[in-house]
């Protein structure tokens, strides 16, 4: 799943490690989400969105998700 996490990190000038610590996951998890290898759970997506003070839809691209 495409995300804007890397972009937001650059805007806020924070490292993967700092974001990972803030949302309670390992740095590897953030890396995997950024390179689209792993899809974050709803709870983690919420924590990341809350950290950047935005919504889940603004960070995660759900256009490929079929309903």
């Amino acid at each position, binding site marked *: 799943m495409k995300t804007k996490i890397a972009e937001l990190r650059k805007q806020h000038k924070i490292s993967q490690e700092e974001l*990972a*610590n803030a949302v*309670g*996951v*390992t740095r*590897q*998890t953030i890396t*995997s989400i950024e390179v689209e290898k*792993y899809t*974050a*759970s709803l*709870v*983690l997506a919420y924590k990341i969105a809350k950290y950047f003070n935005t919504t889940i839809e603004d960070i995660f691209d759900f256009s490929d998700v079929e309903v």
Partner: protein
Amino acid sequence: MDNFKIKVQKRVMWATIYCVVFLTVAIVLMVYSDKASYPMGFTSGFISGIVALAVAFIIKYIKALKNPEALRKLYIEETDERTKEIGAKVGHTSSIITLFVLAIAMLVAVFLNKTVFYTILATVLFISVLNATLKLYYNKKL
């Protein structure tokens, strides 16, 4: 984090109990059995391994308990959702591969040795029953 701290303290307690119990067993075995026998050698090695592992965990947990930063790092390591998913996938895949390899070994063993064949058959049955039981349990639990 307080709950996790209590959990880690309990783990230290249990690891210490394991050490004491296994060391007691090792001492009793050393005193009352043939020290040079193969089973005794294997048991000593097994117990040494368990105790070494328990001591390593005790050291790791005590270090984490003394330092809040290390405790948080340990908490993140243990609760990371990707790590948990990797663990679940590894468990699932390895159980399928284990069953497959054992099934092949069983088919070979039936021509070579009956004892080995029945041992592998029992193992295959046990793993299959365990898999089915756990599937039922987690289907109801989750």
